[in-house]
């Protein structure tokens, strides 16, 4: 099933299989140093604090590759770019030697406020021009590519003039940014908007995709919510298989943020991805 690897634009590495670093597992990780190829952190949880989370992160970053993934960069917002926040991101990235950093294709607030949610933009030419310009500005400032994720969306603006997958593909190419393809979000969004997830995946520019997300969600019947509170469903694994077929291997991460289970359950769940990756097993960390 595995195909020859399609390199990404930046030759960023396939880090293997990782999970989101969550406070519940700090103790377990720093006592046992369990097998895991890499960790993804929620950037904002380690900014404006010098407490316990950063103390553990410093130790973990010495032994595992770290990727930074944020939720408040708000690249779609019409507010001015917050360069002070970018400085904080850059400082954290330097501290943990982040392999890459990113956020979502969305906006989180406007007029100086923050809703702490991932709001969709209208998929219009104006929206695209705005976001391309913002992403370029941010990338120039940070001097590295941004890795942006397709969000789960629950509404469609009447003014949208192109499908989400076209907007994202054009954004990646025109802003020359990297993509984090969340296949669970593809599933959720397509269910919510009655779209074909395979067509969505086939529209992606895979030379821009450097990372993949897997997660569980809640199916309310009328719509799905991206809750990250359970195992990955079989339909999402099928979508993952398709992405793997297209790329030949991308850094793959399991998100599990609510009803967080024991670390061994995360290892087992993300380990299922190895069946698409020549049975590659999770690696033990290097000694600090």
């Amino acid at each position: 099933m595995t195909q020859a690897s399609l390199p990404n634009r930046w030759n960023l590495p396939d880090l293997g299989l990782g999970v989101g670093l969550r406070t519940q597992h700090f103790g377990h990780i720093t006592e046992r140093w369990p097998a895991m190829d890499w960790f993804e952190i929620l950037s904002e949880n380690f900014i404006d604090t010098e407490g316990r989370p950063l103390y553990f992160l410093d130790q973990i970053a010495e032994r595992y590759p770290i990727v930074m993934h944020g939720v408040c960069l708000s690249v779609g917002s019409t507010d001015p770019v917050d360069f002070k926040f970018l400085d904080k991101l850059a400082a954290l990235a330097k501290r943990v030697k982040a392999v890459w950093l990113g956020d979502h294709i969305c906006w989180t607030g406007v007029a100086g406020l923050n809703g702490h949610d991932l709001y969709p933009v209208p998929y219009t030419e104006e929206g695209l021009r705005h976001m391309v310009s913002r992403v370029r500005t941010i990338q120039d400032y940070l001097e590295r590519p941004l890795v942006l994720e397709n969000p789960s969306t629950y509404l469609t603006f009447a003014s949208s003039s192109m499908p989400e997958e076209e907007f994202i593909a054009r954004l990646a190419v025109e802003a020359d940014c990297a993509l984090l393809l969340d296949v669970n979000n593809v599933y959720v969004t397509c269910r919510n908007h009655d779209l074909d997830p395979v067509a969505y995946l086939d529209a992606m520019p895979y030379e821009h995709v450097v990372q993949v997300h897997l997660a569980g969600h809640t199916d309310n019947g009328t719509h799905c919510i991206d809750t990250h509170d359970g195992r990955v469903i079989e339909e999402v694994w099928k979508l993952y298989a398709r992405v793997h077929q297209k790329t030949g291997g991308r850094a793959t991460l399991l998100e599990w943020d609510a009803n967080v289970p024991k670390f061994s359950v995360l290892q087992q769940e993300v380990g299922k991805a190895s069946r698409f990756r020549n049975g590659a097993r999770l690696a033990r960390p290097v000694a600090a």
Partner: protein
Amino acid sequence: MSLRDAPRLETIERWMQAVVMHPEGAAAGVAARPARRLLLQAAAKLENVVLPSKSLTSLERLNIYAYMYYARLLEILTNEYPTTRQVLGDKVFERACRRFIERNPSKHRTLNLLSEKFPSFLARSLPPGNRRSLAVDVARIERAMEDVFDAPRADPLAAAEFAAIAADEWHRVRLRVNPALVPLKLRFPANDYMNVARAGASPRMPRPRATFAIVYRRDFKVFRRDQAPGQFKLLTALARGKTLAQAVRSSVSGRGNADRLAATLGAWFHEWAAAGIFCGIERAGSGRRGR
């Protein structure tokens, strides 16, 4: 919708934010003046702005975001203020949280500071009485726990470093207080109340009594403890930058005989050293700065 009629991106964002942050939900948000001023066409026919899906109306789709906005922030306040919630009861607490979120929407990218004004908001907005005063005291302690959790790091002074301060140096020695420390003057024995409540019991409403507490972090764990009135006065004087001699004079001088005072001070400094309350020594005039 023709391109000419399509609302600008900024208008759409401001409109959606006004709708989802409305405390009574998306329907009230769409009908309210801030949203109508931005997009009158949405109030006339919401489908002109947000499309329905096969199974959800336009309003139901907007309500997903409106519900999540309050649910997420309520969850944070509930996690940060469990004992305040116990003092007020679930209904009063949730009502207060909703009003707080409505009037103090987040302006920060991280959530650490979301509730920094929550204790003072409770003081202003709850009906006066002992329950409000206790709730405010408890909320101040719970907020302080958040603040010291995130505060800058500093290595504590060892007991031996205190012992090395000679008595004739007191007039020029200043102690640097750990930045992860918040001193609190309270109207109730709120720290005792929290000890009982957080042990899983239902404490009785205490009688008003001035108490003094400190909340601090040691080895990345957050602690809180009561202080004697003189002890608190001395510590806050030191935190304001007074020399040891000035701080002692202003807070505990004239109390009992010299031996007893020395024993009391010794016990307090021993307690503070064990708790890691001080993180440096400055000697005025000598040019020497410890750490």
